[in-house]
């Protein structure tokens, strides 16, 4: 059974960060920050999206490059602040 949260995160990351025609596919464990797909400056878009989408506030300490480095890890962060998602 699919995970709607991870699908949503993957869809956002693909639209927001992946250049059209680049052939880059975002898997659950694809390294986003350490892999150079998302840099620390543009990561702020992702944080903003998650906060707006799931009506949560993510403290800076939980929005580190490590915490946001994969779809799986991002989903963990979201569920920490919105357990029912």
């Amino acid at each position, binding site marked *: 059974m699919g995970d709607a949260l991870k699908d949503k995160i993957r869809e956002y990351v693909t639209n927001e*960060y992946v*250049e059209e025609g680049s052939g880059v596919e975002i898997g659950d464990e694809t390294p986003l920050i350490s892999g*150079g797909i998302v*840099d620390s*400056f*543009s990561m*702020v*878009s992702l944080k*903003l999206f998650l906060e707006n989408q799931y009506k949560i506030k993510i403290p800076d300490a939980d929005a580190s490059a490590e915490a946001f480095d994969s779809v799986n890890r991002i989903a963990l962060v979201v569920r920490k602040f919105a357990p029912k998602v």
Partner: protein
Amino acid sequence: MVYPKTAREHYVGELEAIKRDGLFKEERFIHSQQGAEIEVEYPLGAPVKKVINMCANNYLGLSSHPDVLAAAQEGLATKGYGMSSVRFICGTQDVHHTLERKLSEFLGTEETLLFGSCMDANAAVFEVTLGPEDVIIADRLDHASIIDGIKLSSAQYDSYKHLDMKHLEQKLQQFQDKRIRMVATDGVFSMDGDIAPLDKICELAEKYDALVMVDDSHATGFLGKTGRGTHEHCGVVGRVDVITTTLGKAMGGASGGCISGRKELVDLCFQRARPYLFSNTLAPVITAASIKVVDLISGSTARRDKLEWNAKYFREKMEAAGFDLRPGQHPIVPVMLYNAQLAQDVSRDLYAEGIYAIGFFFPVVPKGQARIRVQLSAAHEKDHIDKAVAAFTKVGAKHGILGLKKDQIIAKFGM
């Protein structure tokens, strides 16, 4: 001496990691003035060698121009060496005011404020003009000094894919609830030579009620028919709200920068910009020489025309030789090598052939995007360019990269 062991071990470890990753940078020691040909000692202790310089921001060849040197000497004689003051206490001379006025005329703006560097100008401009109710929307490849300046402000910020106007439009739509929106972009992106589509950016800014901020450091003096910059090149003089730029590249190459734009915005920077309030005034000698530079380039387009020809000629020759160049029309010509070690090896071999051009690799450019970033200058004569192309071709053949494209170079050398 207190020097905690943990601190020292941490720094040693970091330095060793940089070396291990092949990312360690070394300086070369230049004995001559800046110019098309320079005298270099490298490594330390080696005999000084004359080489052709292909990597300076000396776009108009003014860094050691006799007229600029004469103006600097006159400035030293009449205005002194230093003011020992920030601007607003006793650090403003008539020459500062004159230069600011001339830069406003040249750039087609209402008001200009000088800084010690464009890095300082970028540190100031966002913090002064925007607050928590506002948003800055920046191109993802904006210069590090713009990113740093944005982070210094209390405004919210977001970014759009490099040069992607559709993505920029989405962001402008997204932030319509903000008080002030500002789009921040390089006019010319320093690693690639890409030119921002300022006409489209201004159109979007007008449609979505946003300010436009451009760092034009790699354009002021030579881009556009009369060298005003990217805004002239794109036909939007008067429509960009704030320009930051440097005097440390085409405009003489010493140091200095400025914020130039809408009167009230710049006036507020006079009142509140921290680098203006807390950092020393631009030295009199630089200010005086910069006035001469503005007069020289306002009076004739000969230098920027020659630069344009040099860039076109070099590109044509290098493409014919089989190099993978990032396409463009700017005097920044990235010769793509992708692998950091290859970039360093090619740079070393070029030096042996009498060509000075540095390899760029992480963290200056993203991993896997290493290159030799060539920069043409109006100081280059055709003969310099021919020698450079010959050297590149010889070195390229040695490393087996001629005629190879990205995938082939990466397959051969790795990323």
